[in-house]
């Protein structure tokens, strides 16, 4: 790049071309701009209150490392008086998490922040290695995913913290918007673009821990640049999984979009926020756009942790095909308005998460109610290649069919798990269910070190 003065200070030579604005800056001006913009996100939405205790979900990856560093800097610069603590989760997989955990430990030292590492072992009584030994690779990803989702919340509660921040960036949110459009997941479209979810109140125990993403408007590329120029120490935690098929497809699209027009990443996020207000039942119908942050209620499945693809336990290429299959069968039945003879048992593949997926991708009316207009459709199909000919009965096509299927998606009833109080739409949350299965199958032998503390 030919020599060019920094567009902010006009003195130093510009070393950086900012992807988000296209401006040329020297390193110090860039890092200052980055920090100031993050501060603006925080203050304009009144994300923190003075003296608040915040747990930073630290995976050792670039996003959470930058987040920790920036928050530390801003906390000092603006005297917010926040009490910051690093919270890291150890799945207990030998050889996987070790390196990133080391990075987290080094960061904690450099930043001078307290660090709490919580293992699955102590949170749930089972490490992933133990789970795998037990279930022998059958759906082990499911366990990991479910446990991780709760882990940050449980960890925060153990620390007495009501607010957790994560390093999700603009690219992540944009991908989520595209992904949810492809999946037809209106409910998550509503929630995925929220700066804050959860209330931080005490009503749900650790279920209502507030979660926010202060880096939501930061470009992934700029996060990398920031980490580089501040010489931050991180370990990339992109592990060997194949990205969830929808997210992978969405990710490619976002990358191509960025090449054509870098600011479109933020535009996708803004669109997502706007669409969220238009989701029926979201409560924001048609009002003027305010800067007030809505603390939306969380769905436990929303929170994807770093690392593993998200706990479906099935191969990536399969997910899009599976959704395609479900949609197609729904469409066909819709068209014919007849009673189809395809009656498969409601096979719960991955339990509640999958069921809810099906609810969202298909026309709502059909999947939820077993009887639609007097016809019994069982839509939870998972086997394929049943090329049965639907019976063309003499029934008239029910005109209500379309109306029902175009109705708003059902509101999820989020209650609390009976056992542990975690936010769940079932009586017993997924984690407790899995643990019950694990504990029943093989009683823990071996000496337990008494009084498992933290």
């Amino acid at each position, binding site marked *: 790049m030919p020599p060019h003065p920094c567009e902010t200070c006009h003195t130093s030579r510009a070393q950086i071309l900012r992807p988000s604005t296209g401006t040329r800056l020297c390193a110090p001006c860039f890092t200052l701009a980055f920090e100031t913009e993050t501060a603006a996100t925080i203050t304009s939405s009144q994300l923190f209150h003075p003296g608040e205790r915040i747990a930073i979900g630290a995976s050792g990856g670039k996003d959470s490392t930058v987040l920790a560093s920036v928050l530390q800097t801003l906390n000092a610069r603006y005297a917010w008086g926040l009490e910051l603590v690093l919270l890291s989760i150890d799945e207990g997989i030998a050889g996987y998490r070790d390196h990133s955990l080391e990075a987290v430990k080094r960061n904690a030292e450099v930043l001078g922040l307290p660090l709490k590492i919580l293992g699955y072992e102590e949170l749930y009584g089972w490490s992933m290695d133990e789970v795998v030994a037990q279930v022998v690779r059958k759906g082990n990803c499911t366990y990991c995913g479910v446990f991780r989702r709760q882990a940050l919340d449980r960890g925060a509660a153990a620390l007495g913290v009501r607010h957790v921040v994560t390093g999700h960036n603009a690219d992540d949110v944009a991908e989520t*918007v*595209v992904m949810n*459009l*492809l*999946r*037809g*997941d*209106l409910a998550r*479209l509503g929630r995925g673009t929220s700066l804050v979810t959860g209330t931080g109140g005490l009503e749900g125990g650790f279920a209502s821990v507030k979660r926010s993403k202060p880096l939501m408007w930061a470009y992934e590329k700029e996060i990398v640049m920031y980490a580089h120029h501040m010489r931050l120490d991180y370990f990339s935690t992109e592990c060997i999984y194949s990205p969830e098929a929808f997210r992978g*497809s969405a990710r490619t*699209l976002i990358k*191509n*979009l960025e*090449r*054509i*027009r870098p600011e*479109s990443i*933020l*535009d*996708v996020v*803004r*669109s*997502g926020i*706007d*669409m969220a*207000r*238009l*989701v*029926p039942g979201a409560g924001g*119908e*048609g009002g*003027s*756009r*305010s800067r007030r942050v809505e603390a939306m209620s969380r769905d436990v499945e929303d929170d994807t942790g770093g690392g593993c693809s998200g706990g479906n336990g099935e191969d990536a290429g399969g997910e*899009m*095909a599976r*959704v*395609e299959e479900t*949609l*197609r069968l729904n*469409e*066909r039945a819709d068209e014919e308005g007849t009673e189809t*003879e395809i009656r498969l048992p409601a096979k719960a593949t991955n339990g509640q998460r999958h069921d809810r997926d099906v609810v969202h*991708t298909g*026309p709502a009316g059909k999947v939820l109610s077993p009887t639609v207009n007097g016809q019994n459709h069982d839509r939870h199909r998972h086997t394929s290649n*049943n*090329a*049965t*000919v639907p*019976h063309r009965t003499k029934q008239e096509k029910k005109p209500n069919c379309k109306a029902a299927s*175009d109705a*708003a*998606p059902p509101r999820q009833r989020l209650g609390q798990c009976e056992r542990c109080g975690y936010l769940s739409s079932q009586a017993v949350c997924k984690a407790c269910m899995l643990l019950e299965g694990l504990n029943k199958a093989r009683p823990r032998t071996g000496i337990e070190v008494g009084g498992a503390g933290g």
Partner: protein
Amino acid sequence: MAGPPKTRRDNVAVDNSLCRRCQTNAPTITVRTEPLCSACFNKYVSTKIIKRMESFRVRHAEVGQERLLLLPLSLRACSIVLLHILSQHLRVQGEKSGRTGYRLHVLYVEDGKGEASEASKLYELIQHRYPEHTYSTRPLSDALALPGMQELLIQNQPAATIPLDLSTILTTLTSATSRTDLHHHLLRKLVLHSAQSHTCSAILWASSTTRLAERTLAETAKGRAFALPAQTRDGEAQLGTGTAFYYPMRDLLRKEVLSYTSLVSPDLEELILDERPRPAVSTRDTSIDELMRQYFSSVEREYPSIVANVVRTTGKLLVERVEEGWLEGRCELCDVGLRGRAPERSRLCFGCIRVLQTREAGG
């Protein structure tokens, strides 16, 4: 697949070597995994379109006062197929009840993009083939003569003078995305204006599922997703006009429409304007709309229902309510609500401001 019929639990044997629906003819095409013969396929296509014309059934029409509907003709496959099937539909309506539920006015907009002579030849051919409708043409540059357009566009053209012409404007825009976007809005405004001057009560756009999905993602990528429900929902009256938009082809994939053009007889291929070859790989000069087109043509191949689902999902979103009749509150180019999306006292939303940025303005 030849072989003995397979017996199912329900005692209905399915012969996979025959058309899935009529089980009589040999299949000529596979539609979303179902093999169909030409006749059943043609019926499938027609049915999907006619289903969307519910509000224009004969019984809903007053004698002698049938509603006039505008059909913008782009000379591409989708609008030709729409014209063909609706002509058929009207014929059937006439045969069954001696009158029709609506009338069609076909509008051809010349966009001066080249191939003008070929286009006008095709246009004549179409008029011969479907003489029962009324026809008119307008050049796209007419859109610039609409009220307020010159003032709007001159803002970013410091060196130019009124009246601006279309090619000048297009060449000074900074990106392919801007050009495509402006083109789209000018077309929309012109068609709406034509509908009003011909007293049409509704406009029948020929967008396929695939096209609507492309638009959904393209507008999302431009930060204008909130406008989608209002502009893509069937029957939604457009700002201050009382003219509604309909998309009768919204349940058909583009590839299905393309297949129809060759499977129907007499075939429609000779009526369709040849497409310029499209780039296979996106480059920095590709427009966002083109990117989405490439994306969905590949998704359409393997996951057609997902394409349909994207459109369905957006269809469930609520339409944003801006105070009715408050024209001040709308962007002058794209018609979306301005509040929260535009600088103070601006007549354009942020998205359109960016579209209209010219090279000199440092876009």
